């Protein structure tokens, strides 16, 4: 996938440098043991507590001093429960989405930041699903605090969290169509309708482009 330009700038005449800018997405490969720090201990404990470890974890990435476990979506709920109950990750601090349109079949990533107060440790879970089948198990049963975070991720990326107690839009209006944080969704570009009057999209309001 490549992205080009800002505000629809095309051809020459643009000296900002943004016009010819091409973005390509890069991914980081998996890490081999030893992971360093407490990460080996977390992986060991999880392997001991969860016999299906090798089947559930797609890859382990240690980058910039942070541990990311890529979990298969079918196993996410089990892994989360074991992390909470046996590895003492009491808090799911945040759920965030990322959209990688270039990763065919795993375009949408859901990223969970977990915190253990008891062990004073942080890890990250990442789950990949496709745009065509954007279903994930909801973790509200494990950590009630993921409720709004999952609603936000649904609102912005269209990831559907199965068994969520009330998966509705949270930041955008209820009747909004489209998922604004996806990469193919424009910045601006949406006409604003208010009480019958229509205001052109922000990107259309200027005479210059």
């Amino acid at each position, binding site marked *: 996938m490549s992205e080009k330009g*800002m505000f629809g700038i095309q051809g020459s005449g643009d*000296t*900002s*440098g*943004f016009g010819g*800018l091409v*973005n*390509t*997405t*890069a*991914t*980081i490969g998996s890490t081999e043991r030893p992971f360093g720090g407490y990460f080996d201990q977390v992986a060991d404990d999880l392997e001991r507590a969860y016999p299906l470890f090798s089947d559930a974890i797609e890859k382990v990435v240690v*980058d*910039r*001093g*942070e541990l*990311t476990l890529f979990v298969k979506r079918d196993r996410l709920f089990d892994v989360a429960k074991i992390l909470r109950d046996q590895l003492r990750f*009491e*808090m*799911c*601090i*945040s759920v*965030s*989405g*990322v*959209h990688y349109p270039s990763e065919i079949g795993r375009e949408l990533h859901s*990223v969970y*930041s977990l*915190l253990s*107060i008891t062990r*004073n440790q*942080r890890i*990250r879970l990442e789950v990949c699903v496709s745009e065509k089948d954007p279903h994930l198990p909801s973790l509200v049963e494990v*950590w*009630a*605090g*993921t*409720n*709004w*975070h999952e609603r*936000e991720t649904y609102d*912005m990326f269209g990831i559907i969290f199965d068994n969520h107690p009330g998966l509705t*839009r*949270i*930041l*955008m*209006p209820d009747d909004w169509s489209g998922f*604004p*944080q996806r990469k193919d969704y424009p*910045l601006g570009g949406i006409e604003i309708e208010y009480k019958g009057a229509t205001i052109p999209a922000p990107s259309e309001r200027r005479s210059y482009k």
Partner: protein
Amino acid sequence: MSTFTDPYASSQETTEGRVYSVTGGDWDALVTEIGATKEERVVLNMGPQHPSTHGVLRLILELEGETITETRCGIGYLHTGIEKNTEFRNWTQGVTFVTRMDYLSPIFNETAYCLGVEKLLGITNDVTERATVIRVMMMEFNRISSHMVALGTGALELGALSPMIFAFREREKVLDIFELLSGLRMNMAYIRPGGLAQDLPDDALSKIKATVKDLRHSFKDNEKLLVGNSIFMKRTQGIGYLDLAGCTTLGITGPVLRATGLAWDLRKAQPYCGYENYEFDIPTTDSCDVYGRFLIRMQELEQSLRIIEQCVLKLEKLEGQPVMVADKKIAWPSQLSVGADGMGNSLNHIREIMGESMEALIHHFKLVTEGFRVPAGQVYTAIESPRGELGAHLVSDGGTRPYRVHFRDPSFNNLQSTAAMCEGGQISDVIAAVASIDPVMGGVDR
């Protein structure tokens, strides 16, 4: 059945039964009609424009008399798409956007973001000590100004007007310091990837010392008004109860968590910006209620002052050290200075790049128009904001613009506890409970 033609008060038949909408109009006529039915359930919309709901927060309360049986929050009224916008600007410009999220703690937003960018760039250890100490000092000043709003408006919402006057008086002094240092009172974009926008002005330290002394003295005014005040205690003690188990499952951090007796503060637990080198305490209570949270905020003011004093001592020794990384490929090129009209480009710097150094001009041009490239990867950096854990999840694809910026805002998360705190209580307790969460809707909706 409906005899209304009033647009502000009408009733209609729905699948849930007859619904009466009251937003004004003829009260007597409405009461007569409602009196004819046996339904007692009232759903009350408090907000989004209610003065006591802390910004544009909509609370949907289901009532039985004065008792709340169910509460839900409606948010999103202040959603401005900041996270999406940052994907269309370079990494340095991102600071200008994220500072506007939680508008009461702009310095914290900037710091969380910049620590993340620096971690992605791998330059965390290259940031000079002077820049880090100034960051800490600014954050602690910001903690004071933010807590002042929490305490002042919190008390105001409970009907106590004087604390608000005093709190905003103190806040003004802190904002004056911000203006002196950065040229702006809020949304400063002062902290930049690699360091700071500019160094302290010459007279800064002496003014900071005077302000610290002044603040320590005048904080007592509010303390005398609120601590031990029997009316205030009756409105806040045992109200908005949330214990440790509730906090952990809901992911609650900050003063709400510390009011359960757990001394969890990222400044101590997972130090960043050299917080391990400062002496300060973490105030806690174990009352789990609104009053306990107020007390914690009040005690944190003194701890922030202690940290600022230590910062001043350190800064006196670090005189002359740069406040930006040495790498000219990353350091924001413009040399800003505070003028009569705020922060702007230093004329000396413009003279140099336009007249003397071609290289400086090229760097300036490349960095300002295109920005620096950040190696691909993702990081999550968390800091202790006045409201709890503020986290920045940053993803880079190797380009000059962020691939994804997500802020884990403590207000967004903590507001989820409204139902747990309010259900079963009275309407008036909702105001106290929400005030004790101290949500800032700019941060909630981003």
